[in-house]
């Protein structure tokens, strides 16, 4: 075993724009250490960890991980299989639509395990974490605790030497939390060389680490063993010690929580056998509780245990499946406005309008709650004062720190002076100081204003501040009492222990799975990562296909988008103009004049409408759009012709739509000439020109739209849709954060892109055949040339199109931008510069240049050649060369622009 340090960091500084996120002189972590990073959100913990994992690019300073300089690409490639990284956020590195087993399978393949080994490892990890029973459940539908366990499984699948966990237990129930740490302890026991670095915001958890780094504002405030830190600050708890380290809080005293007695007379909230089912799933199961006026009632439980659902039923957002609930003596089901005016609600996400200022948010909510105009201003000012938001009145929520946003959110919920406040995890993610401040307000509201407060939380210290608490697990309330009573009843040291005992009692009835030996799981040598691995590529392909299969909208787009659009374009961009309406103002009414009218009416282009009688009528009917053409035959038409006088026939064309008008002009002139010739022939003249001009329309003798349109539409659709899909597939991962898995695994850029490309290439090819069939069967445009040439060229073309999407994806951050930018970047050159309407040689300047190199030009030539000109490899084979050349170029650009690290 090597004796290098696990982490050796010197003078690292990291900026996001102008903000310094991290500024650290030195961090040294020995191998086998169990290290904690503590500090509230936004102090740079995550940035530091992502740098250690190689997920983020080092901006300045030196960083050696496991003895290797992480700034070198070659080193990173060697390190990926030796490091495991679990990013912050519940299930952030998981794929929510994939099942537990599929997620694990994806990671296992990335690290080069054989099939047998893979299955064995997956089975063991699942058993060790108690997830076996849920192997087929989509990761997105797991509870918070299970998600984190699965995340850990995914991280452990390749047997790392360094395990980096970013807030792994945030949002997880106490039992799962304890199980999680037990699991880590077991693994460390089996593998003493394993270094574990954990970031956490729970001070209560921090005492278990060997060594702590306390962070604030991107710097290390202090480091040392937990006891040492407490001793230095003369504090009883780590939380206290940490708060005292913060600048300006040296004399911090914990919030005084004296339990108050209530005259338990008036009932504010009551639930009776409240249940909620979503399909087969029972989210809330026969829940009962009674909350009195002025009481603070705490609601505890893991994510997904039914807390939020219960709260939503109480607010009337969700209708209960069975049971009943009353607020202030009135049943909730009524959904009446009156009840709502007496309740305030605040959710996890602090749902504020980020586009409105603090003041505007308050005014809007006040108005919607129907606070009388006269009092509104007074109320808003009172809220601003009470929640210490006066200085921020013109600030936007986005610019404010989380703690202030939280206060605003509560102010908004309080604007209408509700008698009941329902607060759903109002303090998640907020630092300890802001939490204290928040609780002071809450306690005050309950005490002085007799507001009933129903609050859910993850924090045990918060739970202890409540008058009474309920613990919820899998939709049931396990216990409901005052905190001291619960502790006493369970004979526990503190609330945390008490809850764990309660949960264990509850779960004992279900099979316990924690006694499995882990050594069989560990101690499997991780395979050496090769430069290019088909297995990793295939792993990405498999995952991409599974995800696509489970996203109906993208699947619809991928499968039918091009067909629908071809159908629409086929009928929409139809150049054939017919069924044109015309009417005649015939002032002559002779046989001759009627023969003129008949010659127009007899053509297949025109449809005759009732005759006209006046100029006013011409005007009126043309304005209404009823007539495309109005003809006027003057009085004495026949007589004057007979006398040899020149007569004029008036023709008015509706010029509103110039394309149509031009066609009408052409038709009318043609019909007029034809009529003149007929008249001459009728009078016995031989009319013949000295020269016949014969126009031969090649390939499409009828000059019909469809045969001309179809070959031009196919290259357009085969470019746009595949490109959009691949571009979305990359940007989607950027947006959801799962791109981290690409950053921290040995997957190379080419593997990543090719892996993602394969499914879309398959879809694109199927689409091509469907388009061919639709062209032939629906639009009656058959292939005349070589089917194989077109197929071969089209497959190459789809490869280019999908690779093109990757190039675009490198330049956009959001999916919606990816969508529109890809659409523009494909459609504009394909319609204007690729010879669709104007041949490339007639283009000038940059357009000509684009046309010459844009692959759609060549696909267009091949499609036209094969569809209409009966050509094959002999005549058009040379156009394949530019397509073949384009593949490595476009794909190379995609690889070149794709970062393997976050910046």
């Amino acid at each position, binding site marked *: 075993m090597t004796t290098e340090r696990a982490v050796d960091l010197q003078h690292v500084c990291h900026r996001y724009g102008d903000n310094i996120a991290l500024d650290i002189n030195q961090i040294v972590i020995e191998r086998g250490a169990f290290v904690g990073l503590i500090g509230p959100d936004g102090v740079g913990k995550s940035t530091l960890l992502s740098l250690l994992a190689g997920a983020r690019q080092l901006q300045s300073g030196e960083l050696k991980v496991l003895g290797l300089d992480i700034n070198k690409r070659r080193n990173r490639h060697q390190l990926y299989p030796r490091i495991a990284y679990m990013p912050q956020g519940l299930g952030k590195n998981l794929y929510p639509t994939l099942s537990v087993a599929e997620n694990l399978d994806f990671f296992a393949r990335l690290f080069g395990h054989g099939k047998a080994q893979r299955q064995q490892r997956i089975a063991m990890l699942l058993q060790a974490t108690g997830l076996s029973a849920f192997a087929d459940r989509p990761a997105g539908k797991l509870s918070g605790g299970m998600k984190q366990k699965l995340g850990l499984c995914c991280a452990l699948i390749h047997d790392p030497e360094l395990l980096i966990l970013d807030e792994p237990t945030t949002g997880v129930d106490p039992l799962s939390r304890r199980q999680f740490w037990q699991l880590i302890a077991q693994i460390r026991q089996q593998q003493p060389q394993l270094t574990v670095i954990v970031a956490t915001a729970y001070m209560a958890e921090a005492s278990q680490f060997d060594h702590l780094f306390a962070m604030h504002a991107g710097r290390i405030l202090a480091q040392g063993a937990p006891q040492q830190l407490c001793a230095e600050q003369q504090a009883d708890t780590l939380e206290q010690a940490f708060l005292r380290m913060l600048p300006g809080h040296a004399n911090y005293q914990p919030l005084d929580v004296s339990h108050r007695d209530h005259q338990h007379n008036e009932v504010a909230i009551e639930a009776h056998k409240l249940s909620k089912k979503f399909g087969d799933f029972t989210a809330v199961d026969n829940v009962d509780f009674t909350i009195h006026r002025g009481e603070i009632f705490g609601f505890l439980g893991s994510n997904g245990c039914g807390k939020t659902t219960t709260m939503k039923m109480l607010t009337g957002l969700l209708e209960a499946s069975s049971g009943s609930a009353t607020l202030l003596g009135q049943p909730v089901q009524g959904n009446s406005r009156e009840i709502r005016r007496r309740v305030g609600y605040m959710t996890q996400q602090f749902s504020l309008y980020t586009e409105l200022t603090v003041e505007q948010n308050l005014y809007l909510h006040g108005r919607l709650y129907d606070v009388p105009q006269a009092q509104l201003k007074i109320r808003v000012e009172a809220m601003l004062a009470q929640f210490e938001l006066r200085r921020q009145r013109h600030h936007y929520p986005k610019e404010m720190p989380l703690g202030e946003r939280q206060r605003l959110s509560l102010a908004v919920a309080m604007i209408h002076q509700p008698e009941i406040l329902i607060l759903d995890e109002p303090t998640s993610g907020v630092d300890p100081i802001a939490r204290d401040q928040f609780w002071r307000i809450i306690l005050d509201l309950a005490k002085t204003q007799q507001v009933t407060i129903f609050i859910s939380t993850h924090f045990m210290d918060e739970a202890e501040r409540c008058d009474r608490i309920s613990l919820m697990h899998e939709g049931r309330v396990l216990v409901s009492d005052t905190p001291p009573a619960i502790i006493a009843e369970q004979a526990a040291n503190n609330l945390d222990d008490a809850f764990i005992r309660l949960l264990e009692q509850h779960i004992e009835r279900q099979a316990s799975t924690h006694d499995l030996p882990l050594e069989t799981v560990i101690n499997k040598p991780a395979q050496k990562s090769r430069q290019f691995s088909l297995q990793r590529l295939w792993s990405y392909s498999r995952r991409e296909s599974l995800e696509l299969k489970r996203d109906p909208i993208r699947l619809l787009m991928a499968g039918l988008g091009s067909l629908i659009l071809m159908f629409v374009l086929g009928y929409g961009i139809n150049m054939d103009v017919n069924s044109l309406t015309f009417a005649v103002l015939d002032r002559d009414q002779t046989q001759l004049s009627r023969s003129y009218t008949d010659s127009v009416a007899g053509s297949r282009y025109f449809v005759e409408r009732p005759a006209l009688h006046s100029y006013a009528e011409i005007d009126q009917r043309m304005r209404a759009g009823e007539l495309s053409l109005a003809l006027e035959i003057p009085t004495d038409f026949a007589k004057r012709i007979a006398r040899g006088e020149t007569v004029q026939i008036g023709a008015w064309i509706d010029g509103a739509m110039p394309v149509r008008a031009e066609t009408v002009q052409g038709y009318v002139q043609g019909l007029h000439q034809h009529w003149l010739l007929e008249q001459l022939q009728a009078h016995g003249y031989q009319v013949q020109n000295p020269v016949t001009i014969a126009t031969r329309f090649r390939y499409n003798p009828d000059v019909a739209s469809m045969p001309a349109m179809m070959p031009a539409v196919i290259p357009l659709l085969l470019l746009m849709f595949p490109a959009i899909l691949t571009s979305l597939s990359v940007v989607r991962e950027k947006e959801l954060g799962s791109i981290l898995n690409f950053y921290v695994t040995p997957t190379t850029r080419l593997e990543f892109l090719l892996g993602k490309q394969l499914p879309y290439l398959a879809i694109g090819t199927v689409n091509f055949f469907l388009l061919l069939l639709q062209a032939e069967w629906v639009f009656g445009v058959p292939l005349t040339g070589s089917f194989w040439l077109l197929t071969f060229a089209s497959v190459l073309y789809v490869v280019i199109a999908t690779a093109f999407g990757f190039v675009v994806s490198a330049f956009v951050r959001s999916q919606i931008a990816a969508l529109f930018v890809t659409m523009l970047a494909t459609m504009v050159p394909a319609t204007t510069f690729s010879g669709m*309407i104007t041949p490339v040689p007639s283009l000038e300047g940059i357009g000509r240049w684009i046309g010459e190199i844009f692959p759609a030009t060549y696909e267009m030539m091949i499609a036209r050649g094969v569809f209409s000109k009966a050509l094959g490899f002999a005549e058009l084979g040379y156009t394949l060369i530019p397509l073949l050349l384009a593949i490595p170029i476009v794909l190379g650009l995609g690889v070149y622009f794709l970062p393997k690290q976050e910046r």
Partner: protein
Amino acid sequence: MKQTFRNTIYLGLKELRSILRDPMLLMIIVLAFTVIIYSAASSMPESLHKTPIAVIDDDQSQLSKRLVSAFDEPYFLPPEQVASQVADQIMDEGRFTFIVHIPSGFERDILRDDRPELQVIVDATRMSQAFTGSGYIQAILQQTLAEFYAEHHLVSSAQVPVELALRSRFNPELNPSWFASMTEVIGQITMLSLILTGAALLREREHGTIEHLLVMPVTPFEIMLAKVWSMVLVVMVAATLSLIFVVQGILAIPIEGSLWLFAGAMLLHLFATTSMGIFMATFARTMPQFGLLLILVVMPMQILSGGMTPYESMPNMIQVLMSAAPTTHFMQAGQAILFRGASATMIWPHLLALLVIGLSFFMIALARFRKTLATLV
């Protein structure tokens, strides 16, 4: 009732504030009604511009040279002389859309009255160019030949003395940019109203504020109506300004009819499209999904509404189908008002259709919106 009205106003004002605070959306709105309109109007592709043309001159006479030199810019590039053997090949490659073949002894045959034949070979896979181009070529050849006949007194003067006086109304020069700019305005109205309402709803969903609204004494009807009126207002103002300043002002395109009537038709149209935006947004969970839906819905609606090719030339089935789309009626009504100066009495069937479509879309969207909200939380 009064409460409903007030809530709708407040919520709508909030939407307007949101737009003002979203530079991205503002930019899209401004671009859509200025740059895009302008470029659509000014870059309407001329189907004939420096078209490459090839000539097989087997005659090499005075006349044949005269014919060849008759083709010139801006419509045609100077013709390229090619040998008759390669004619098929260059046509297959698609390098030339037109080849004029002058047979050997052409001039001599005319003078001998042997009635020779002049061939124009056209690549008809390029529809629009083939069609217009062959007309131009015919005309150019005819005219050059007519001069030649006249010089050599070859034609008789027998004629029926009837002239055709062709006039086009509403756009006397058949300037394509008139039509392009106005259909673009109409298209952008539809597009933006869908994007804006969809974004307004999805923004609230993504931020979780919609849930917050629902616990307030506010009904789904009020929430939806607020989004509808505010987005209708934004698009109406933007589109009207665009018609006045960009179309009439910068592009100097005359508007025949009453802007007020057009605004009325637009109001009815927007009522339908904003409802549609809400409806679509209830199917999407995120903006990207909404974007995908938008492509699949908007493109057919725009292309088949009669803005690109005449509505009456479409197959019957499509016409029936499209008569349920608001764009179809708005396109017809809009064209009638803007170009032909039609009055309300002439286009009332379209206005009525818009009203009916709008009302039914609103009701459907509201029902769907209520349902989604119930399952959303």
